[in-house]
């Protein structure tokens, strides 16, 4: 799951990233968050649109997906 998500995020943001990457440093905005919600939903059938506040790091996002798997 981590690899699929990171590969997708790399492609989507056109930048290199790891689990430690902070979304703020990618200039992630509400639109990017929505597209990530859509991708995770389609790929893993999991709803991660669970909070007003977006995940701080990529690891926070993968942890949230893992905990709902």
């Amino acid at each position, binding site marked *: 799951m981590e690899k699929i998500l990171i590969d997708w995020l790399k*492609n*989507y*943001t*056109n*930048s290199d990233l790891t689990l430690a990457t902070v979304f703020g440093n990618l*200039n992630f905005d*509400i*639109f990017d*968050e*929505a*597209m990530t*919600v*859509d991708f995770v*939903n389609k790929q893993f059938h999991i709803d991660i*649109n*669970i*909070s*007003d*506040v*977006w995940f701080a790091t990529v690891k926070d996002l993968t942890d949230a997906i893992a905990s709902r798997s």
Partner: protein
Amino acid sequence: MFLPKNNLVAIAYKTGYCGSLIYILAALSPEVNQYKPLDRISFGDSTAHENNEHWFHGLHDYWNSLDVDQENWDSYIPKNTKQALLDDKLILFRCHPNIAYKLSFIENLRVLYLTHANKYVPERWAYEKVYRAQGDKFYQQQLNKLINSPTTVKINNRIKRKLLVNNLNHEVISWKQLAAQMKIPPYQVEVDKLLEKNFNVYTNMCGYLNITAMSQDKFTELIDTYNSKQWKRF
């Protein structure tokens, strides 16, 4: 019912898929009737809307054209358009793929269907060009449509994401569905390849329309200008 000669072409696309660029690329050919002379192409806001073509009443706006059918088709055609459709030059107009599907009763209608290899890219462009500019009004309208009732509820980030995802997944007739419906198969224009200055994509499109292509230098210059104005993430 008024039916065109073989000179009507729909550019079918969802917002963000560079419909105005494709319109201009085709409309610069001498075989195309320009609604207004295309003498000032700056792509100022990364669109060509200053050259908006109004050949038809409302067909460009998705929500205003959902009712179009064989019975009311004539009411969409202004007098000057009827006259132009009697001419030999092509008439190009832009519409949503779902509207092109509804126009399949026009048996000699040709359709350019715009596609992109990564749907998230044109969605971002639509967001930058249209939705973000509207701000909260966009989210409010989308929410009202979703619940089918006017509301003034405060829209938080969770709701905003939900509305953006809904907009992304708004059901659009696919090229395949359209091809099954139309008498003349629609032509897929791969917008991402066009923006990479793939001249063949452009000349093949011209071949489908049976129009003269511009020179490769002119094509490259136009795409470079467009790309320089288009929103970029990094």
